[in-house]
């Protein structure tokens, strides 16, 4: 299905990632946002609150993030495509309801413009330190999807993908932005609506008498019915059967919780997105995501200038983790370098997938800025020395 032209700001803009993310949401068909503004994500909802009345949607500024994260779920069952927007401290408050969205299979997008933490940390400065929180923050076993844009343009593009993924797989989808991507202003091209592919809500075609709210289709995902359309809906956070009624026993738990995970993991090929550059014959591969991938790009260029075969692999989708892809890369390369704006989060997943085939190096950062490309280069050179690879020195090069 194509996007509705209503609200699509087709054209070339010079805007920051927060604003572009908002436009992406509107283009994707998002018509309801509940939020509690927090730096550095405020501009997303600020813009939404101004723009959305013109296309017939709604923004509610809630009393807090707990309320925001549940209000969107009500609106989703009412038929709207929904989103909430926050940053670390707000995300922490949302955790309980994220679990509910997983359990009740509520399509929703949660934007996290990451800032330095823990706690209130660095409100106006970047980090990528919520990567594990979005995966594991709510209790219980579950899978979610997380995307990691590295530019304002991608804030727009991936926002559309985020909505499409949430509608397809009926789970919370996270847009893992960061303060730099959110506030950096760049060229953003918004295509005409008829070039934007949109996944509509999976409404059931069954009659109310035949409909079972949590009966999965062949892709393991159940179709939805709109509250108020004559269907009987029972939506609960308790373990439930296919009708949605509480069924608190071992077989029901096994069936439901496994399906919630499997619908993501077994469909992972349709979800993961790793962008590889020069990895075919690389000795060292830099695996990165989000804003760090841009800085990593500068370091990779420098290392190539010194005669090293360095590839780069960017995880556009961080969850589900692209383990198959990383395993393949690590069998070919001697070392993998992982820069991230935290003290080591996704690097653990990379190590798990690499399984000892390639040595994994972390380039950490406590947050508040981005890496200096030289720091990433240093680690690439260290990895090269450890692997016995020769390279020119900076002096030889110039």
């Amino acid at each position: 299905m194509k996007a509705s032209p209503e609200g699509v700001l087709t054209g070339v803009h010079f805007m920051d990632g927060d604003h572009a993310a908002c436009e992406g949401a509107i283009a994707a068909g998002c018509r309801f946002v509940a939020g509690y503004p927090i730096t550095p994500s405020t501009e997303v909802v600020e813009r939404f609150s101004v723009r959305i009345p013109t296309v017939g949607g709604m923004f509610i500024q809630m009393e807090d993030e707990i309320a925001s994260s549940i209000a969107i779920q009500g609106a989703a069952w009412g038929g709207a495509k929904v989103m909430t927007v926050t940053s670390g401290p707000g995300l922490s408050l949302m955790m309980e309801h994220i679990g509910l969205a997983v359990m009740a299979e509520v399509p929703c997008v949660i934007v996290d413009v990451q800032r330095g933490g823990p706690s209130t940390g660095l409100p106006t400065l970047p980090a990528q330190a919520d990567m594990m929180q979005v995966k594991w923050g709510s209790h219980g076993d579950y899978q979610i999807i997380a995307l990691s844009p590295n530019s304002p343009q991608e804030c727009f593009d991936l926002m559309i993908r985020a909505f499409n993924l949430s509608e397809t797989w009926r789970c919370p989808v996270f847009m893992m932005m960061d303060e730099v991507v959110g506030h950096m202003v760049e060229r953003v091209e918004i295509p005409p609506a008829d070039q934007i592919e949109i996944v509509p809500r999976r409404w059931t075609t069954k009659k109310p008498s035949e409909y079972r709210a949590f009966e999965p289709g062949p892709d393991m995902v159940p179709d939805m019915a709109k509250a108020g359309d004559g269907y009987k809906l029972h939506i609960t956070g308790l373990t439930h059967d296919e009708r949605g009624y509480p069924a608190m026993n071992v077989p029901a738990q096994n069936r439901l919780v496994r399906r919630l995970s499997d619908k993501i993991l077994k469909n992972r090929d349709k979800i993961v997105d790793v962008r590889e550059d020069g990895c075919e014959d690389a000795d060292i591969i830099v695996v990165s995501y989000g804003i760090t991938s841009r800085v990593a790009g500068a370091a990779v260029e420098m290392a190539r200038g010194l005669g090293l075969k360095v590839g780069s692999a960017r995880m556009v989708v961080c969850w589900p983790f692209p383990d198959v892809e990383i395993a393949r890369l690590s069998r070919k390369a001697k070392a993998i370098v992982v820069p991230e704006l935290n003290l080591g989060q996704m690097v653990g997943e990379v190590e798990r997938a690499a399984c000892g085939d390639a040595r994994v190096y972390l380039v950490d950062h406590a947050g508040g800025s981005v890496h200096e490309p030289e720091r990433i280069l240093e680690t690439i050179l260290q990895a090269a020395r450890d692997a016995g690879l020769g390279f020119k020195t900076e002096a030889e090069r110039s």
Partner: protein
Amino acid sequence: MESVKLPAKFALKNGVEVLVRDMVRADEPAVFEFFRLLPLEDRHFLRNDVTDPIRVHNFMIDDTHDRVRAVVAELDGRIVASAEIDRNHFGSMTHIGQLRVIIARELQHQGLGTILSRLLIADGVNAGIEKVLAETSTENKAAMLALEKMRFRKEATLKLHVKDLAGRKHDLAVYSYDVSHIWDKMEALVADYSPMREY
């Protein structure tokens, strides 16, 4: 509101096309002729006796900075309308513009007054004017309606302020059009507080 590039042709409601251009010194004889042919009732509320060539000359050379722009409309080589917007160049009222428009009888109520006013207001805004004033006797219903249609608001009435030809007194209505909201947006843009927005 970008300034209209002049000269430019405008088609009026009756199909007549007039040429609107900046008023220049060489227009003096033609402007004099235009004023001379105005009916007494229309001339009566002007500031000057425009049948006096010296007065008209003074009006023409008033190219001090006070005048933001003066334009005329031309039809078959004749001047058929004159309009200007003035401001104080100094002091507490530099942001106020004064609008004056006069249209030849045979071309009144054809939209020309509105065209000229809009054009001059845009110039005023571009010169930093925040509020445009126009005055008219309350007897002059056409002028009042024309101003109201352009979203001017009657801001004050000076009671029994002006005398008509017969010596009867009428109220003077002071109309204003506040354009400061246009600059409020610019003010918000330069606030440097939050990232730029372009909704």
